[in-house]
């Protein structure tokens, strides 16, 4: 490392430490604690008590695709994110500012979170395990490659913490996003279908099966139909600890900002 390189790194590290210190100090202040209260009451339900993500995105990365500045973050909290489960907040503006402070401190805390596995090796695990059969990844603005039975993973590293990724791989039934619920449908003729529930009303049911074929049934033509409590994704707890760690490192490295 050159002297200039060393100096640059030292400055960056110092800045980071100062920033972290400021964030932690703010978090411990009465205003920070008030922000924490609001966070626990209004956000933790989806984003997790420590911002680790769940139904909502992981907040510990400190990188939010819709919010670069505090004002952006305030606006997103106020208006929600249309087309997602993030609702508009009804908190007063002053309270949302406290919330923004707390969310920033969660982001600062997570900035150091680093996967222990090898991302490049994890990409091989991803390929060899057949993840792409159901999930897609868009590389360098190119065409998305993979299936559509599960969520696209382009920015999964931004959205989910390491813990969440591990839990999702080992016990996928523990949390199933609403738009990825599975369903079975059995026709009166006895034919059984299983797949992703795309849509449903009182009279009809639409699904995509494992071979990506689309089906639309009139409920009156079905002998039985059932929403699945279990995930369509099998558990990958059977992977070796090294493979699992590498796969998590790979997933965590997928951070497409425009998704």
């Amino acid at each position, binding site marked *: 490392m050159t002297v200039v390189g060393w100096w640059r790194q030292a400055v960056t590290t110092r800045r980071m430490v100062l920033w972290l210190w400021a964030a932690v100090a703010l978090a411990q202040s009465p205003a920070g604690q008030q922000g924490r209260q609001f966070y626990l*009451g*209004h956000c933790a339900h989806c984003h997790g008590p420590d911002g680790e993500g769940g*139904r909502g995105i992981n907040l510990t990365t400190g990188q939010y695709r819709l919010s670069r500045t505090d004002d952006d973050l305030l606006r997103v909290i106020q208006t929600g994110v249309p087309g997602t489960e993030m609702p508009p907040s*009804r908190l007063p503006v002053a309270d949302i500012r406290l919330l923004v402070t707390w969310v920033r401190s969660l982001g600062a805390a997570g900035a150091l979170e680093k996967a222990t596995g090898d991302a490049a090796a994890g990409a091989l695990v991803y390929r060899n395990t057949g993840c792409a059969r159901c999930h897609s990844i868009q590389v360098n603005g190119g065409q998305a490659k993979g299936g559509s039975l599960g969520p696209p993973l382009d920015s999964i590293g931004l959205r989910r913490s390491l813990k969440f990724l591990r839990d999702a791989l080992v016990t996928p039934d523990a949390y199933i996003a609403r738009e990825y619920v599975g369903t079975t449908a059995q026709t009166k003729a006895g034919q059984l279908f299983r797949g992703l529930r795309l849509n449903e009303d*009182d009279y009809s049911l639409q699904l995509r099966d494992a071979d990506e074929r689309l089906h639309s049934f009139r409920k009156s033509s079905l002998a039985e139909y059932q929403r699945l409590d279990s995930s369509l994704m099998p558990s990958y707890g059977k992977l070796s600890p090294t493979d699992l760690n590498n796969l998590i490192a790979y997933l965590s490295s997928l951070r497409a900002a425009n998704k």
Partner: protein
Amino acid sequence: MQFLKLTLLALCATTLAAQVAPNPVNPNPVTPNPVTFDRLVAADREPQNWLTYSGNFAAHQHSSLNQINASTVGRLQPRWMYQMRTTHKGESTPLVVDGIMYLTRSPNDVIALDAATGRKLWQFDYKLPPKVIVCCGQVNRGLAILGDRLFMSTVDAYVLALDARSGRLLWKTRMANYLEGYGSTSAPIVARDKIIVGMAGGEYGARGFIDAYDTATGKLAWRFYTTAGPGDPNAASWSGDSWKTGGATTWVTGAYDPDLNLVYWGTGNPGPDYNGDVRKGDNLYSDSVVALDVRTGERKWHFQFTPHDVLDYDATETPVLFDAEYRGRQRKLLMHANRNAFFYLLDRETGEFLLARPFAKQTWAKDIDAKGRPVRNPGTTPTEAGVAVWPAATGGTNWFAPSFSPQSKLLYVAARDEGEIFYTATSPYRPGDYFLGGEHKPVRGEFPTGAIRAISPLTGEIVWDHKLLTPPWAGVLSTAGGLVFGGTNEGNFFALDAATGKDLWHFQTGDKIIANPISFGVEGKQYISIISGDVLIVFGLPE
């Protein structure tokens, strides 16, 4: 006697309805006759018209037309549609007078249409100031009419009178300061020479009231405050000054008994919604129905369903009036399918509690005692960590209309079986800002459902139950054709058998239905209308 009268009227109406007679007085559908107060009182005699928000003063939300019935409903098809072209929600119930439909388009435009063809006659555009504060969408739910005047209240807290022939503005009166969170979204009621108007703003620490305005001049005749302040015999039901920001708003249309000259109006939750520590006491007259003398605005009686509410169980749902023999005595009665998931029966002359029974999933009350006061289950008060309670803040039902059929003598309710996690937080009062004291979130993993339920009003018993995939946001309409119409979040408009709940017909409209259906007739043909998304669809039988 009143019941007998209503029954007779219903019988007359049914006979008339058999042919859906064209308006005998004025066959030209583009010049309606003035709607006198007597016509409003006897609205059931004009089944081809829909003269008030709920169809009649008793809020039956029922049509005695029967051309569309169990044998013909299978042939029902769209006859015309009107695209409102608004990004706001379509929650309006139209009025139909002698072949003309008067429709509000959210936020506060009014449109007159030929009810047979859907062609527009006139339009009134209302300009709103830029910063209107309403919790749940800039919506309007309908109009009132008297003579040749239409009345509407606005989301920026004004009351307007328009000329029904032209849409010309006749007068405009300010109700309150919209910048402090006051507004109005519901249809007014005409009561003799006054219009009675409710208001909204409970999520902003507004102080609730019910107003009466002179129909001719727009002058305020009286105001009844729904939080008991100093001088009110129930002022002690609020700690400190909490009555000043106590909510109890009046955002859904009530009902009216012209014989008793009492207006019945439901009131909303106390504010802040989820944190009751800053407003100790029963918080009267929140979550109540109040009976007010139309002449003076004086409270004749009140009944509180949910004292010291911390779960947002507004009692604003429209009360429904009917007369029947109860425990050996002929009574004037009031039914209320409440957001707290209980059905209530009250004596509407005295406010006496008669019975309560749950009609949707609930975990907050162990029982309702002999006086109508709930016995709460422990662990159902919001906390910082959150507690799961059924029903959700959106309730066992909500603002959309229930329907009473004088034929089947059943009350039909769109019911919601959904729970939520309730949290507390401290939020100090700041004018125009949310004043909630907490929040509510869905229960993880729950797929809430809904139903149309038929309730026997004298027992509270559920006679039938038609399950729906998700908790509905649309009201119901019963008809003398033995049908109940309703709508779903997934866009299906449907007809059920009023006696059994059996599904007889449905139509996929393509958008969420959050409005009340109505029925009317023009030139001998019966129609059913509903708003889906921002499109009004009128159904009829093929030519």
